[in-house]
């Protein structure tokens, strides 16, 4: 059952400072309302994964690892491989994260990232088939939140995309009942590059890339995931309040430009 989250223990004075600054068009970390925190992307840190990427978004840190394994396709899509996205809010990342089964925040995070990749048809699912209806490659995208300083959705979306671009898979084929290695590697076949852009409404102002302090006072958030053509492939509103229709329209338009900037960063970092 989903319950109203407990309010974070933030001093009223601190909340007021954050809100007042945003109302004046400023922010607590001296950014403008429409700018991201510094973004750093490193790929290939985890040698045992097929692909990996770590994204620093300000002080938020998210690591994504790709594992490609052999499995069976879903019965309704015998000619497609399988994509699975999971997110772990690791307890070392925040005093508010606890060990145990995934929280609804973790489920939402993974499902929003999943929707961006799946709906933009980023991964060529057909090319993952080794034997129709029987044997396919299963691509696991595992998102590991290491330090939570706000806007985990954008950090996770960037890490997942960078890790997918970074992935190398050994060439395989099916002989008889066995999957054998043909030798050599290939890249994961990608057709699209979705990037999530998250906005928060603080007081009555829309800001991009909310930090944790801003998330703790925000009314609501909206994530818009944009594909390589500048079209929308996923959206998700969260938070206890809402947006006016005009605020939604403004955010959607702003997302296109922001996504293009971040996509360029990801591609540059992932291709090294």
């Amino acid at each position, binding site marked *: *059952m*989903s*319950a*109203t989250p*407990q*309010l974070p223990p933030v001093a009223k004075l601190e909340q007021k400072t954050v809100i007042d600054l945003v109302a004046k068009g400023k922010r607590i970390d001296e950014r403008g309302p429409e700018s991201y925190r510094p973004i750093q992307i490193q790929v290939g840190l985890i040698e045992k994964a097929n692909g990996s990427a770590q994204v620093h978004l300000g002080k938020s840190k998210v690591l994504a690892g790709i594992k490609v394994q052999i499995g069976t396709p879903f*019965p*309704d899509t015998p000619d497609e491989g399988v994509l699975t996205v999971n997110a772990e809010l690791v307890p070392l990342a925040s005093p508010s994260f606890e060990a145990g089964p995934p929280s*609804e925040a973790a*489920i*939402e995070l*993974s*499902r929003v990232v999943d*929707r961006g990749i*799946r*709906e*933009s048809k980023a991964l060529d699912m057909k090319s993952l088939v080794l034997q129709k209806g029987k044997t396919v490659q299963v691509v696991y995208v595992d998102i590991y939140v290491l330090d939570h300083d706000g806007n985990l959705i954008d950090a996770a979306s960037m890490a997942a995309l960078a890790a997918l671009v970074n992935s190398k898979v050994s060439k395989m084929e099916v002989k008889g009942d066995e999957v054998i290695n043909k030798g050599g590697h290939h890249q994961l076949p990608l057709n699209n590059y979705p990037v999530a852009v998250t906005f928060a409404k603080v007081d009555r102002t829309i800001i991009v890339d909310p930090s944790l302090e801003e998330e703790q006072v925000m009314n*609501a958030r*909206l994530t818009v995931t944009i*594909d390589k053509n*500048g*079209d*929308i*492939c*996923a*959206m*998700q*509103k*969260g*938070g*206890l*309040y*809402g*947006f*006016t*229709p005009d605020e*939604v*329209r403004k955010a*959607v*338009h702003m997302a*296109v430009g922001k996504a293009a900037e971040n996509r360029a960063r990801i591609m540059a970092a992932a291709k090294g």
Partner: protein
Amino acid sequence: MNKLPEPKQPEKLIDDKGLRIDGRRLDELRPIKLEVGLLDKADGSAYIEQGKNKILVAVYGPREAHPKHIAMPERAVIRCRYHMAPFSVDERKNPAPSRREMELSKVIRESLEPVVLTDLYPRTTIDLFIEVLQSDGGSRCAGITAASLALADAGIPMKEMVAACAVGKIEGKLALDLSDAEDKYGEADIPVALVPNAGLVTLLQMDGHLTLSEFEQGFTMALEACKTLNAMQREVLKKKYATIKEAAEEREEAEVVA
């Protein structure tokens, strides 16, 4: 895993006359039936049929928070469970809550939070149970529309009711209130919830592919449909109170006669 044969994919989602598989126009809602107060034990309840969707919602509360540590000192906690019956879909659904149901429980709760005057009932919970008895696309939206009614039926103070409706894209055209097949074989789905008088969008999701102008057009269609649904919600509530009033008047008359 053994699998039943799939229901056949319709050849076309829109026919030559521009009508959809169920005969609707692109901007037409499915037939909707709303009822309130049909459960005996719940503090408030509502039922919605929208196309083949059949959804029952119960509200319990405000009631003492259990376990106690979840209570909040300044407001009521809203809890929400969206759940699908195992027989509500083509292939039996495992009754254990799926990740999808957990996400929907969260977004539905968030869509209703802004209208409930939770600060009137500190340390309590208001529990919403949404049971999808039969699912036919757009069940989260129908669930929100019915949940608002159930809250009102429970007499919980609210600013106004929330109404929700989805818009999608089928065969390149925007279409209101997607059915199951249209959602499955269509190209995009945007569920929207609106608080009409406040002009607040409290649920907005989307998956698929839309250009900015398609989004703009579809979003506007969905907002308009939410207003239509809101008028229907009001009618149902008015009817409930008219019935109560009539019954009371009849009782009074009977007493006078006696």
